[in-house]
């Protein structure tokens, strides 16, 4: 493997780590209004946060297991779809996470400015 390939892999791994936490926040924030998986993925993608299905659906399941999301199967557009929305616990946690995110953002901005 070449040196530039190594660097690219390293960068991609770091990007993945950086995105992982942000994606949870983005998903929780998007689900303040009820959505099903496909529209959620499109909504995230339209705002510049592309997420693979293989990442999104297991994440939704995990968040639901943790009690942060509620889901139900319902008919929409003539087909059964699974709709997700934030649970009361999810709303509470999201508010705390957003506050944390803003604090991190402010600190980072200060650090990067030097």
């Amino acid at each position: 493997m070449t040196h530039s390939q190594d660097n690219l892999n390293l960068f991609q791994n770091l990007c993945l780590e950086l995105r992982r936490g942000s994606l949870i926040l983005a998903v929780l924030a998007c689900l303040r209004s009820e959505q099903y998986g496909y529209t959620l993925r499109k909504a995230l993608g339209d705002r510049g946060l592309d997420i693979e299905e293989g990442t999104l659906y297991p994440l939704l399941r995990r968040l639901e297991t943790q009690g942060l999301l509620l889901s139900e199967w319902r008919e929409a557009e003539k087909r059964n779809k699974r709709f997700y929305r934030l649970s009361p616990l999810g709303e509470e946690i999201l508010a705390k996470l957003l506050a944390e995110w803003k604090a991190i953002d402010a600190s980072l901005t200060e650090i990067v400015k030097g």
Partner: protein
Amino acid sequence: MPPLDRYLSNLAKLLPADQREDILRELSEDIRSEFEDKESELGRPLTEAEQLAVLKRRGNPLQVAAGYTPNQGTLAFGPQIIGPVLFPFYVRVLTFNLGLTFLIVGAIFAAVSLAGQPIHFGDLFSSIILQLFIQLTAVTVIFALVEKHLSRQPHDWSKEDFEKNLKAAIHSRIQKNIQTGPKEVSRFDSMAVLIASSVALLWMQSIWTNQYLIFGPAALLIALAPIWHVVYLPTVFIMLVTIFRAGVNIARPDWVRFRDVVSVVIDAASLAIVYTLMFAHTWVVPADAAASTSQHVASVVNQWAPLAISASAVIALAQAIKNLIRLYKNWRWHPSSQQPSH
């Protein structure tokens, strides 16, 4: 079978059984939505090649299933050799095979030691390392091949008719009493049994040509008695039936009764073999009939062997009773079985 159905049915084999239907419904819905979006962009139905391109982008079923599987580890030397879906079964098979082998090697060395022969740490160590190497290599290679096979792109996947099987499984799950009815046979358990039995069969074959594999350095002193030749073919037959049973249940996990009946038959045959062994009186013979050391070691091993065989008999009997109870319970749950008679 359309590419989507083939993709989903192959994925179904790899998903955790308790979430399978739910995950499949959701993924199916998601993929159909993507198909519809693309169709409305193009103003025409997608061709099979275009559908395959969508599925290929989503990743092969093994990768997708890995996302839903609790990560219990992977095996990788650079590229990943065994992924998170197969890894727990790899560990289970390896542990079972190594445990059994070390038990046998340990018993042989203990017997040799009881016979008053000096045990050199180097001999014991080299025997253990050799067994470790053989088992590790065989099991890893088999699992790596399975992983490679399962990791092929969706369009290269087996074209077997899993759709019917999947629909039947979903139907039976929804319609029947899910809480108390018998669970379908885990495909990965069957795969683990198939691989463990295959490795055991290969190991048994190797023993005949090289008894060092079972006796270690004591192979210079003792050899297997003729009774093992008597039970060899029936044992091979039992292993082949076990492999066949596991193979069938990989393709048809809903054939629970088939598993139950065949297991009971295998248990009965195993008990017959253990019974034959119990009354053999001689299990090892001196490798060199003229050497007194060989005779002494063989006599000590023969003195202790009934204990080991009795323990095997107890385990085999317990297993048989457990499987018989399982057969009885499952039979009662399906008084008018929907399964084909096998």
